[in-house]
């Protein structure tokens, strides 16, 4: 008896051979622009815009979505090796990776286009959003100064608090903590009330890095942070130890939700949206997430409470996502035109409305709702590693952030972590680099 299942499979197989091998290519009559992106949430909105653009200019735009972002970033790198990059694409990663793409001659410099018409295009953006795609005079990457990408949205990362839980704790629900001491005091109250305090995706280490950097700016100022990255100030400096010990203080006061060290941000969002945590440290995209999970959530946004009065508090912010033009594409002029159209106010408003991201175009930013607006306002305090002109080595960042996890679980002291990070830093500095 020959297997019956096998025969069925064989028939299905033959059937699909006929269907599956039919050519998938479409006839290419007019110019077609291909855009690669990883922004799952924006797929439908992009397709809508592509339709509008085709109706207006006759140029077809194909938005190709590759998600999750890890797979996307591998795909772009692999495609670069095979010289198969599309007309427009986004680069995920650090500024150093961006620089490598430019050095490898994959990215068109947009400066001349930006400066056309009295810099009309350039001036339509938030300067800070554009800065992420900019290389300045004398940058450490050795890139010709200029603008190499167009931001399509902006984001900021700050604190949010739950107003009704604030009331339960007997606090003024319109007065988020201003100083770090206030913050810790609330932590004690939270502990006493047996509630959960701050949630955030600190299992994904970059979100720890973000808050630690915020406080580093607040405690020692931008110049000293950058001097540290350049290797002129050691991580064992008292100011850095102070930054690390803030995390210990937060943990000791009961401010941090249990399990925060392995929490992914989506879990943190779930907890905050369902009123299981008083605070969250999250990016501006959270407005959208909370709205979906709990439309009645009453919450407000605030800057992380300052730990020192010496320097202003800084938060991370800037371009959320950006697009680059492939300079080897034969359609690059058309691609630039499309990007310019995409970042014009009407399209930006549409994108902002359809996806609840903050628009990168200044003129369209006064049209967004309440909490979102406070995230947009926070742009004034925003900074980002990608605009500092120097990048820290990733093993150092990892040692720093994992070190903070160890501090929170009480395994290491801030001093120990500072020394370990400095050791990694020295090891990396000793290596010969490109």
């Amino acid at each position: 008896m020959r297997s019956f299942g096998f025969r069925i499979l064989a028939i299905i197989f033959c059937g699909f051979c006929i269907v599956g091998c039919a050519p998938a290519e479409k006839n290419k009559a007019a110019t077609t622009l291909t855009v690669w992106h990883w922004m799952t949430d924006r797929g439908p909105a992009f397709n809508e815009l592509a339709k509008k653009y085709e109706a207006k200019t006759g140029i077809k735009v194909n938005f190709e979505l590759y998600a999750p972002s890890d797979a996307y970033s591998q795909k772009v790198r692999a495609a670069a090796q095979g010289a198969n990059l599309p007309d427009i694409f986004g680069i995920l990663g650090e500024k150093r990776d961006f620089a490598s793409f430019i050095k490898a001659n994959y990215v068109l410099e947009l400066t001349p286009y930006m400066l056309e018409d009295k810099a009309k295009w350039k001036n339509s953006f938030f300067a800070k959003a554009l800065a992420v795609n900019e290389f300045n005079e004398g940058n450490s990457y050795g890139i010709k100064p200029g603008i190499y990408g167009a931001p399509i949205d902006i984001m900021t990362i700050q604190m949010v608090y739950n107003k009704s839980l604030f009331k339960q704790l007997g606090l003024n629900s319109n007065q988020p903590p201003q100083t770090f001491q206030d913050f810790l005091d609330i932590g004690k109250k939270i502990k006493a009330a047996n509630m959960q305090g701050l949630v955030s995706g600190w299992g994904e280490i970059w979100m720890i890095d973000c808050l630690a950097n915020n406080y580093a700016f607040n405690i020692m100022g931008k110049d000293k942070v950058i001097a540290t990255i350049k290797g002129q100030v050691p991580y064992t400096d008292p100011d850095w130890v102070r930054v690390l010990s803030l995390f210990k203080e937060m943990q000791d006061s009961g401010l941090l939700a249990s399990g925060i060290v392995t929490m992914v941000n989506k879990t943190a969002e779930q907890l905050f949206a369902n009123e299981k945590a008083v605070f969250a440290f999250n990016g501006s995209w959270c407005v959208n997430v909370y709205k979906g999970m709990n439309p009645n959530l009453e919450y407000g946004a605030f800057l992380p409470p300052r730990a020192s009065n010496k320097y202003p508090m800084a938060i991370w912010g800037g371009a959320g996502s950006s697009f680059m033009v492939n300079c080897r594409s034969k359609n690059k002029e058309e691609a630039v035109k499309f990007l310019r159209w995409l970042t014009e106010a009407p399209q930006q408003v549409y994108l902002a409305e359809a996806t609840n991201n903050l628009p990168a175009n200044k003129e369209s930013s006064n049209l967004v709702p309440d909490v979102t607006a406070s995230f947009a306002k926070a742009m004034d305090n925003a900074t980002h590693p990608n605009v500092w002109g120097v990048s820290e080595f990733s093993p150092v960042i990892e040692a720093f952030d994992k070190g903070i996890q160890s501090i929170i679980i009480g395994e290491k002291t801030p001093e120990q972590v500072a020394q370990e990070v400095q050791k990694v830093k020295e090891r990396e500095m000793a290596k010969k680099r490109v």
Partner: protein
Amino acid sequence: MRSSLYYKAKKISENIIIHLFMLTVSVTCLFPLLWMISSSLKTQETIFKDMSIIPKVLHFENYCQAWMQGGFDRYFLNSLFYTVSVVIGIIIVSSMAAYAFSRLKFPGKNIIFFVFIAAMMIPIQGSFVALYVLLNKLHLRNTPFGYILCMINVGLSTSIFLLKTFFDRMPKELEDAARIDGCSKFGIWWHVCLPLAKPVLAVVVVLNALNVWNEFILALLIFDSRPLMPLQVALITFQGEFVTRYPLLMAGLTISIIPIILLYILMQKYIVKGVTQGAVVG
């Protein structure tokens, strides 16, 4: 009389213990499945708020939405096509090789076999870029054929290893009988070995089918055009960068495991009965 009663009581208590143990394990296995299905019937708002297994309002429309928004009709067929092709390919190629490694003699046999086994040990994550460049040169990038060949390669080592172990255990007498009857080597492989190996072949089918069905990283790398993508890629659209649409995701996941469960039920017949039949023939 007493002793038979004693044995009966012993047997019943034994069975109770066995059932208790198996039921406990079953509960842990069933719970996530039930959670997934019940979540697929909730809304984004209630999914983490309402923790009951049977929600008050059942949102069956999530399934429709997931099917439509994910473009399942296309991707489902794609995945089916890739899975069937890869599994058939692996079964033929790996059973031939395993048969040769188990029964035939030729110089270099052990070396080739060990290279196959060693291949299971090196994590493939590092070789994606190299694979991409290679496929590009062979003009196999962005083609179903290229993807199928890659996936056959992914499952090859394990399948050969599995099949060889089972071929080694099979009685040689049947083969000898067939050889005396004038069967060629291919004839023996096809008419004697494969039917005898049904249980393990069924395991290989399930293993590889699951592997291909759940694969998406390689597909994202190889395919540029969306119409060629497999089902998992559609599921990822529900897990946004920022917003995960959990009910749709769960509905999509529920749909996507049905074919594998069906295949497993189909194959179980061979895993359980296959050899008894063979033994009867022998």
